[in-house]
């Protein structure tokens, strides 16, 4: 597990929920390797925010992109080389604020990638402003009178837009988190995991521990999943939905691989001449 860690200095706050995600992921990868997923095939992308610092700490290849664009980077990687296993990290502001359109479209397309949404319900790195998942009434520096917008429900949103694996888990439940990560990464299609993770300057672990509960079972239908996502509160953990539908890159070019099966220069020139001269 240790060689999954780089030498980079870790700058998360002591006690940050991100440590739980970091640990669970380092637990999950050897287990995935045992199941035949090659570590060298795993590529990560991250947006910008506290979540994204994981990019520097994980000793895996990848692209540390711009705020909100990590899922686009991930889509571009998968499209170019579908043999790769792509994991994209996002915060709630990053993926549901700046990058909302990209998150929704990656799900709509059922891109075969995994998105881990670190939900701390706050813009932590930029000093505590309200986020797309912040509950009403949050007094941050940009909403001194309390935020009055209704937050998104990430789970029902992902159900609506087409994700094919949707789960919520918690940075304080490492076993559950590890298990869900493994399921999501193994899933073929767009898998979305919302991970509740306290940003300790703004929320305490106890606020979470008091509220978390587990789903009794995987809802059997889409309708049941939607009902569950909407009726249960925002601290309900478990897999909400799991289904199969065609993935994007196979719709685009079947079993082709644009990179590993690229046409030689000569073949290209010959075909260009055919187009121009018949």
């Amino acid at each position: 597990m240790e060689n999954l860690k780089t030498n980079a200095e870790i700058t998360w706050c002591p006690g940050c929920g991100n440590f739980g995600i970091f640990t669970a992921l380092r637990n999950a990868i050897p287990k995935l390797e045992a199941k035949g997923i090659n570590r060298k095939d795993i590529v990560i992308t991250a947006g910008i925010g506290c979540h994204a610092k994981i990019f520097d700490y994980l000793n895996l290849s990848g692209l540390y992109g711009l705020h909100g664009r990590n899922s686009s980077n991930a889509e571009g990687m998968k499209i170019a080389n579908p043999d790769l296993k792509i994991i994209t990290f996002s915060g709630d502001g990053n993926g549901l604020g700046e990058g909302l359109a990209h998150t929704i479209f990656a799900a709509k397309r059922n891109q075969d990638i995994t998105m881990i949404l670190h939900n701390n319900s706050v813009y932590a790195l930029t000093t505590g402003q309200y986020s797309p998942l912040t509950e009403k009434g949050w007094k941050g520096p940009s909403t001194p009178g309390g935020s009055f917008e209704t937050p998104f429900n990430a789970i029902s949103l992902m159900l609506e837009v087409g994700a094919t694996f949707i789960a919520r888990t918690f940075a304080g439940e490492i076993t559950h988190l590890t298990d869900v990560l493994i399921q999501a990464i193994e899933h073929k299609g767009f898998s979305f995991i919302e991970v509740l993770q306290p940003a300790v300057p703004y929320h305490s672990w106890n606020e979470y521990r008091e509220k978390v509960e587990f789903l009794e079972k995987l809802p059997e239908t889409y309708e049941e999943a939607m009902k569950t996502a909407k009726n249960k509160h925002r601290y309900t953990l478990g897999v909400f939905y799991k289904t199969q539908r065609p993935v994007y890159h196979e719709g685009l070019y079947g079993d082709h691989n644009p990179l590993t099966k690229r046409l030689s220069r000569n073949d290209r020139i010959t075909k260009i001449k055919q187009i121009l001269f018949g």
Partner: protein
Amino acid sequence: MFKYFRVNSRINLKNRGLKSMVHDLFTFLVGGKAGEGVKKAGSVAAHIFSSLGRQVFQMDDYMSLIRGGHNFSVVSTSSSRITSQYIKANLVVNFDKRSSDNHINDVTKSGIVIFNSDEQENADGIGIPLSSEAEKYPMKKLMYGVGAVAILSSTIGMNKEQMNQNIKNQYPSGIENNIKFADTIYDMVKDGCQNKYPLERGVKNRPIITGNEAISLGAIAGGLDTYYGYPMTPASSILHFLAKQAENFGLAVVHAESELAVINMAIGSSFTGARSMVGTSGGGFALMTEGISLAGITETPILCVLSMRPGPATGVPTYTEQADLNFALSAGHGDFLRIVASPGTIEEAYSLTAELLDLVWKFQTPAILLTEKHLSENSMTINLNIDNAKWAEPKLYTRGDYKRYLDTDDGISPMLFPPSKEVIKWNSYEHDENGITTESAEMIAKMHDKRNKKLRKLIEHLKTQNTVNIIRGEHPTNIFTYGSTYMSLLEALKYGGLNPTIVQPIYLSPLPIWELEEFINQDNIVIEQSVTGQFASLLKEKGGLNIRSVIKRYDGRPFDPIELSIKIKEELE
């Protein structure tokens, strides 16, 4: 679509080079509503001319709407090279009154004007009942274009048999009706048109392609693997062409949700080693600039086609301008190497696209292929050296500890792509050689220096390449231009019999000042399509050139060679 037109292509070699270009010029203009097959009639005309071994330039002028409005197509042909449309036509075919009104002055002195007598009564020219004749057929609106081709066929001296063969090839649905209709119209215009402009045959059949097709094919030849786009005129036809060719060439071609997604997906693809390109116009490019900057710091090889239309903002979507030059030169926040180059001709668009794809992979930095609607969407017969295209090859990692941002003498770090046992980290934050985020003062400066070294190496490389086209003339004045205005200039000089020296920098960043030094204190004039004269400013500021005057056009229309030659003549006197 642009295959050789094989019918009626017997070539009479006796006529090789007999007449001067100007004497031999013929222009066909067809105008009507969107949805009436105006553009198609123009391209059929172009193919008829090319099947005669002649050269062709076709300009399509259309409005930003789907049905109605006014569209027209101008096709100019010569038995020698032609690089512009001429707005004064020898044969004008108007499908409706609006077209007649718009093109009242667009006819040569002895030219023929055909109008639709069902739409207007007392117009100048020859009236034919186009609407009531077309009414007799099920696909009424589609008959107009066939009628225009029949009128053209009569005018240039084709017999019915030759015409019908062309109609058969070019309008394959409802052939019988099309031929019947064409025969009717052919007979109707017999008196006024028949053999009025018999066209001499040229010497060689050439394919006809648009600038965007040349860009697309050049990218493919250069090694393109993935293309991302979001529809925006005048770049959309790159997306359409490549989408259609994706399977044939094994490409991934994706229409994404926004230009933000487009550029960031393309960067993701480049990370895996895929040769990636994106295309857009000014508004979409504005969104892409964050990605251009990302490519700068992550050292991502990425090629962006920026096809200019009149701005600012939405501007005039289906017309042409050269006002995004400054924007392209400084696109993206921060200090980093941007390569900007602009093709002067459709042939150059092919070779330059492949060349830029190679450069971005050699130098691991973004490049912008700057062009205009005038090149993107117009078409001409081309003389293309297909085999000469560059092939994009990066410097690759061979052995040892891999460091993504290894600091080397020339600043270029060897590349490695997943899957790999080595860890490959590309980072939008300032980073160390391993790609790990840094805030160290020493490392920040070191990485700036590393990336900056690439400019020196690039200039060294470009000094061995053709970066400026110079045609030496005899007049003491030099004319500078860039992009597709070069084609307008060539035609204007030919038309006017003028021979100043022409200088067309292909590269705009870095500007090849080593090629321009000799002109610094000479008498220079600039021609460009920008109200503020952005290109002239660049030459003055970066090249230190003395510039006497700037000939500008900024009404969305390309220069007409006749008008331009008059303006140049005034400047040269």
